Each structure stands twice: as structure tokens, then as C-alpha cells.
């Protein structure tokens, strides 16, 4: 049976690479001088980041009034961006942890960058709850620490506090997960680097990794544990984020469907962002052999199914409102679809539900420019989903006297742009200083057929 396995399961790494080739290929971008394309992208990202920093500085120095919020709409861009980035942050852990638990070997091609993406996205996300506070310099009051106020602690009944714990836990665990995954690769870098700053840093950071089988055994155990922890964590985080809204009393927020709806949405948007980055990285960093069309095909399928779940959630929301017999609830949904922010609602529906349906067509899944456009639109649509949930629910709530509208200010838009700047700056730097693909893992996965043979051999012997 010479050709059968490849037909069933296309190889994860094409191009007939040896182990050494894998190391070299993946480390190559770090050894090369950055390309003009990289420099261009970095310049753009850094500019965006600096714009964002300036905007945030101005906002903190002057007041939240520099945002377009008002007495009725107390959250808009800030929390939209927060949920958007948290959502994006979810695919990384999902791909890393969930697919790891499900033994999806194809994840190895993307898990490293997906984890890094998670980290950077959660960083971007974390900034927003911080700067959206009226007095961000007192953010530490959210932490339950002993203080001169005596028995005054924090309110564990507040979903916002749950958020603080969820996001910080998520960031911490994701960072650890990513870092632990990076340990063997850092050792690889250490061992192949000439003496110099890179060798020094990597040998400091790799914690003295030496590839011992005993360490590998414990490492694999801990990695599995972390994956096992990260999986419920990733669900809990977006569940908690959704509870910011679901536990509120505002019609359009007060919905029990939110936790699964938000988790599906988060995965959806996260996959879209991973795909965006993968398609770019594949082209820019010459990793075609590692990020194959198969990977993209699978990601597309997963993303489309998530899109359908999200679509179902949109429909369910309307049905629930209709069935509730609650006039306030019904109004909010009618108002979403037909009110002043209908444009945002329909942007959301088209980008998230209608357009991804194109991915049913296999040919389109294999046409990267098309996939790229679709994932960008999904990103846009998912941003609007959060905007719609937050702003359209708030702007017309119970008392018509307080109905108001919302328009972002330049400061808000600049802050949003800045968050992209931060994200891409971090990501570009990451591409330069760390292996974008988990070397040790892909080595383990790439030679799958051979090892199966050995295992068979062993089993035969045992028998």
C-alpha cells in the first residue's frame, strides 16, 4: 500500500524536508535581514501604534469626554474593541489547545503564530477596559488587596470584576502556554546561534533546556494539562465577557443565549484573523510548505461552520425577543434591524452570515485572494457585531426621554487604529525574533508515517 496514506491524509509538510531542513527553513527568517516588505509593514504598524499612543495619552490627560460617548451610550468603541480583540484572541488558544486535545496534527503549522496572536490580541483587548475607565490610574482598585480602607474589598458580584480575573488569567495562561511551547525552540536557537546577544538571550530564556527525554515526558504532561486548562478557560473567558452584557438589564443585552453566541463569535473572528495572518505569512515568509492549502481549507471549513452558528444565534435572538412578549425586548431587535443603526446591523449580517456561505465552494476555498477578502470581511463583520450589540442596545433603552445617538470622535478612531498598530507591531517583531512555527512540534508531526511503522513494529514484538 504505497500511496494510500498520502491520499487519505495529505502530508502536513510538503517538499520532502529533513529535520535539519525544517530547523533551517523556520529559523531562516530570523537569520535573514528583514525584507523591504517587512520594513514597510513595520513602519505602517508602528505609525498606527504611535497614533494610538498619542490618542490614549490625550484621552487620559483630558478625559473620557474626548470620546463620543454620552449619558445614554456609556460604552461604544472602547468595549466594542475590547470584545473584538478578546474574540480574536480566542482562536489562538482554540487552535493550540482544543485541536491539541483532539490530536489534530495539522495545528502544528499554525499554533505558534496563533498563540502569539492570542497574546497580542489579549494585550490589545486588555488595554481597552483599562483606558475606558474614568480614572485609569486607579485601575488597581479592581484587585482585592489589603488596604487602608479596612474591610472594603471588591464586588465579586460584578461581571466586570469577573472580566478582570478572566482576562488576566487568560493572558497569563496564554503567555505561559506560549512560552512553554517555545522552550524547545529557544534551545534550538541557542544551539544553532553563534555566540552573541541572540545566543545569550535564548540561552537565558530557554531555562536550560537540553532535550532530555525525562523533561520531555514531564513537558508533554504539563503541555497537555495546560491545553486541558486552556480549553475551558477559553470558553469561560468569552462566556464571562458575554456576561458583561447578559447579566445586565438592558434589553438586547439581557439574553441567556449570549455565552454560546459570544464563544462561537469569538472563535469565528479568531479563525478569520488567524487565516488573515496565515495567508500573509505564507506569502511573505516563504512558508508555503508548512502552511499548506490543506491547512487553509480546513480553517475555512471550521470558520464557515462557526459563521453558521453565529447566524443561528442572530436568528435565535430575534425569535427569543418575539417569543418573550416583552415590548422593550422586541423593540430593541426591531430597532437594530430598522432603526438608526440598521446600516451597522446589516453590515454585520452580510459579513458574518451571508458572505462566508461562499466557502461552501471548494474552488473558492482554494483561491487565496478570495479567502483573504472573505476573512477580512468577517473581521469587519465581527467588529460590527459587537458594535451593534453594545451601541444599539444602549442608545434606545427603556425611557424614550434618554434616547440618544452616538458618533465616534477622531480620538476614538485613532485609539482603535492604535490597537491594530500594537497588534501588528508586536506580531511583526515576533516574526523576527521567534520561530513562527513550533519547530519541535512540527518535527514530531512531520514524520508521522515512519513512527507509525515503528509503533507497529513494537506492538508486533510485544505480541
Amino acid at each position: 500500500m504505497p500511496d494510500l496514506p498520502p491520499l487519505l491524509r495529505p502530508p502536513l509538510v510538503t517538499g520532502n524536508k529533513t529535520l535539519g531542513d525544517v530547523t533551517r527553513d523556520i529559523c531562516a527568517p530570523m537569520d535573514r535581514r528583514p525584507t523591504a516588505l517587512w520594513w514597510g509593514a513595520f513602519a505602517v504598524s508602528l505609525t498606527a501604534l504611535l497614533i494610538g499612543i498619542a490618542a490614549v495619552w490625550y484621552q487620559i490627560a483630558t478625559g473620557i469626554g474626548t470620546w463620543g460617548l454620552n449619558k445614554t451610550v456609556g460604552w461604544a468603541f472602547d468595549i466594542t474593541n475590547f470584545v473584538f480583540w478578546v474574540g480574536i484572541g480566542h482562536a489562538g488558544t482554540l487552535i493550540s489547545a482544543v485541536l491539541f486535545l483532539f490530536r489534530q496534527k495539522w495545528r502544528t503549522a499554525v499554533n505558534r503564530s496563533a498563540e502569539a496572536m492570542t497574546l497580542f490580541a489579549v494585550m490589545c483587548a486588555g488595554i481597552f477596559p483599562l483606558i475606558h475607565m474614568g480614572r485609569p490610574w486607579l485601575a488597581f482598585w479592581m484587585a482585592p488587596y489589603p488596604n487602608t480602607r479596612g474591610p472594603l474589598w471588591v464586588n465579586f458580584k460584578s461581571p466586570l470584576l469577573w472580566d478582570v480575573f478572566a482576562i488576566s488569567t487568560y493572558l497569563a495562561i496564554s503567555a505561559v502556554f506560549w512560552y512553554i511551547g517555545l522552550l524547545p525552540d529557544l534551545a534550538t536557537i541557542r544551539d544553532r546561534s553563534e555566540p552573541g546577544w541572540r545566543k545569550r538571550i535564548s540561552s537565558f530564556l530557554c531555562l536550560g533546556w537540553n532535550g532530555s527525554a525525562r523533561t520531555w515526558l514531564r513537558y508533554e504532561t504539563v503541555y497537555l494539562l495546560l491545553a486541558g486548562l486552556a480549553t475551558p478557560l477559553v470558553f469561560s473567558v468569552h462566556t464571562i465577557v458575554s456576561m458583561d452584557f447578559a447579566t445586565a438589564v438592558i434589553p438586547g443585552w439581557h439574553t441567556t443565549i449570549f455565552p454560546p453566541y459570544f464563544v462561537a463569535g469569538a472563535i469565528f473572528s479568531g479563525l478569520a484573523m488567524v487565516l488573515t495572518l496565515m495567508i500573509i505569512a505564507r506569502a511573505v515568509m516563504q512558508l508555503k510548505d508548512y502552511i499548506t492549502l490543506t491547512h487553509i481549507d480546513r480553517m475555512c471549513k471550521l470558520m464557515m461552520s462557526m459563521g453558521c452558528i453565529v447566524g443561528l444565534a442572530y436568528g435565535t435572538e430575534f425569535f427569543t425577543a418575539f417569543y418573550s412578549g416583552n415590548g422593550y425586548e422586541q423593540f430593541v431587535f426591531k430597532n437594530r434591524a430598522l432603526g438608526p443603526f440598521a446600516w451597522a446591523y446589516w453590515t454585520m449580517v452580510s459579513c458574518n452570515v451571508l458572505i462566508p456561505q461562499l466557502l461552501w465552494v471548494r474552488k473558492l476555498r482554494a483561491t487565496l485572494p478570495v479567502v483573504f477578502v472573505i476573512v477580512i470581511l468577517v473581521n469587519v463583520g465581527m467588529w460590527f457585531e459587537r458594535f451593534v450589540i453594545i451601541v444599539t442596545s444602549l442608545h434606545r433603552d427603556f425611557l424614550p426621554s434618554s434616547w440618544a445617538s452616538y458618533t465616534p470622535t477622531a480620538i476614538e478612531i485613532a485609539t482603535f487604529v492604535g490597537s491594530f498598530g500594537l497588534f501588528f507591531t508586536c506580531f511583526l517583531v515576533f516574526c523576527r525574533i521567534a520561530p513562527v512555527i513550533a519547530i519541535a512540534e512540527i518535527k514530531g508531526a512531520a514524520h508521522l508515517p515512519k513512527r507509525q511503522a515503528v509503533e507497529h513494529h513494537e506492538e508486533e514484538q510485544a505480541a
Partner: protein
Amino acid sequence: MSDRVLVATFEHEDDLLAATAAVRRDGQRIVDAFTPYAVHGLERAMGLRPSRLTWVCFFCGMAGALGMLWFEHWTAAIDWPLDVGGKPWNSMPSDVPVAFEAAVLLAGFGSVLALLAVSRLFPGKQPPIIDPRVTDDRFVLVIAQSDAAFDLNVITTQLADFRALSVEERVTLPGGELQ
């Protein structure tokens, strides 16, 4: 105390696996193996017991969850009971999310710190490198020489059968660290 060890280098994991299994069958004591990636089956071949780090994880998680539940209850209902939105002093359901997060946080950090402690990994550690290519594309097996059953020639031949690239003798540092 320093020991003499035999260091065999392989190019493929299958060779390493087979050699390990064979050497161990012969009653040799295997000091360690070094691989660029987690070679599945190696632990069985080397006869290593499953890691007990899972228990660390479990207890840390329990400590996080229970500790946080207690803390939440204490702050909200005992230290200074404040009427928040008419909710009962002790509203357990709202304590669940943070307790869960605390459990995950402690479990995660606990297991990782335990891993680092058990494997003696720490920042800036300069381990002896047995072969710089062990993190690239080489597989290394280290066999103790002190054993009574040890016969250098037999083992060298045996290892050559498993396509060992090289077999050499080395001396360990006091404390058992390889040099």
C-alpha cells in the same frame, strides 16, 4: 562522584527507539535520552513512569477554587456585608466565575512551576550540551557504564546495528550532570 557513560548519537528517532528498547532489554541502565522533539514511545522504551505533575495541577486547582470561594464569601458576607443590588449577602452563583478563573490560574502556574522545579529549569541555566545538534536533528542515548552487565564492545556493536552515527565514552560531573 563521577561516572563513565556511553553516548550514542542517532539520526532517526526510529533508530533511537529501537536501540533504547534493545539496550534496555539487555539490562543496561539508560541514563537519559536527548531528542529534538518529544519522541512518543520513548518513555515506554526507557521504562519511565508517567509524570505525577497531574496531581500538582489538580491540587493547585482545588486550592485556587476553594480558596477563592472562601475569600469571596468572607469579603462579601462576613468582613463587611454590603447590600449590593438587593442580592443576598452570600450569593454563591456570582462567586463561581472568579473561583473558576482562580482555579485555572493556580492550576496552570502550579503545574508549570512544578515542571520547572522538577526538571531543574530556571532562567539563565547553562546546561552541559551533550551535542549541539540534539535540538536540531540528532538523537542521543546515554547509557551508564557502571553496571555489572556493561560490556563496551557488545553495546557498541549493538548500537552500530541501530545505525548509531557515533558512540563515545564520557565522564559525568559530580552530581550526575552530563558533561
